[in-house]
């Protein structure tokens, strides 16, 4: 089932405006992945929470009502606490058609919605292993 939290990846901050999605993300990442998880419903509260929590990885919904995910990431990049924190986007779009999201600094990839709660942790570990400087490859 699980290969406990990947190398250097233990703390994940997940941001989505839907509490039902956050509930299943938290359950999946904590129980299946063995990660320490913080969740946030509102973009306006992310920066303060990120500074206090110190995530290794940001998991950001692309479509937030008060700010879209790219704008939120840009704001987080201006904060020294999260300037270099790797990020993964959750998106209802099946593809990042023009590649604009995955070209943003520090973005490891996209996870399409709907996602499988039984596979979410593994998918994040896979993306984490592919980050620059990770030795690149499955199982890193």
């Amino acid at each position, binding site marked *: 089932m699980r290969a406990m939290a990947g190398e250097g990846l233990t703390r994940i901050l997940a941001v989505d405006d839907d509490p039902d999605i956050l509930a299943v993300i938290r359950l999946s990442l904590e129980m299946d992945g063995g990660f320490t998880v913080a969740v946030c419903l509102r973009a306006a509260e992310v920066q303060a929470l990120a500074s206090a929590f110190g995530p290794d990885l940001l998991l950001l919904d692309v479509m937030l009502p008060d700010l879209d995910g790219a704008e939120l990431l840009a704001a987080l990049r201006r904060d020294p606490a999260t300037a270099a924190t790797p990020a993964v986007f959750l998106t209802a779009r099946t593809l990042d058609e023009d590649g604009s999201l995955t070209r943003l600094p520090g973005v490891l990839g996209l996870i399409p919605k*709907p996602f499988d709660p039984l596979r979410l942790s593994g998918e994040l570990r896979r993306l984490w292993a592919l980050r620059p400087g990770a030795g690149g490859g499955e199982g890193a």
Partner: protein
Amino acid sequence: MTGEQGREAAFLAEVAALTRRYRERLSGFTAQAQTLARELEKGRDPAVHRELRRLLHSLAGTAPTYGFPGTGRAARAAMALLDGEGGAPRFPDPGVLDGALKALRSAVENEEQAA
């Protein structure tokens, strides 16, 4: 049962419980959508439009994650009726919107029965 198997069983049981609680709320979401559609029909209120779209957007993204893909598809179809050019709000013909919400309710009922 090994510790690993026990952890996996506990995780799957929690996922099942979360799914059951979500399923129990689905018909409430459709009723709420129909109430909002009736309000929209009366006054074309942009705040009501936003609330209805937000609800349908949430169902479209969340229901499939909990294993209700038909509900997600029906919610996405209803949501599309509310989107005009360039993201501007659109106020569809009430009969058309009502038909889409009835299709949503049917999808929920079908998936509730199948669960």
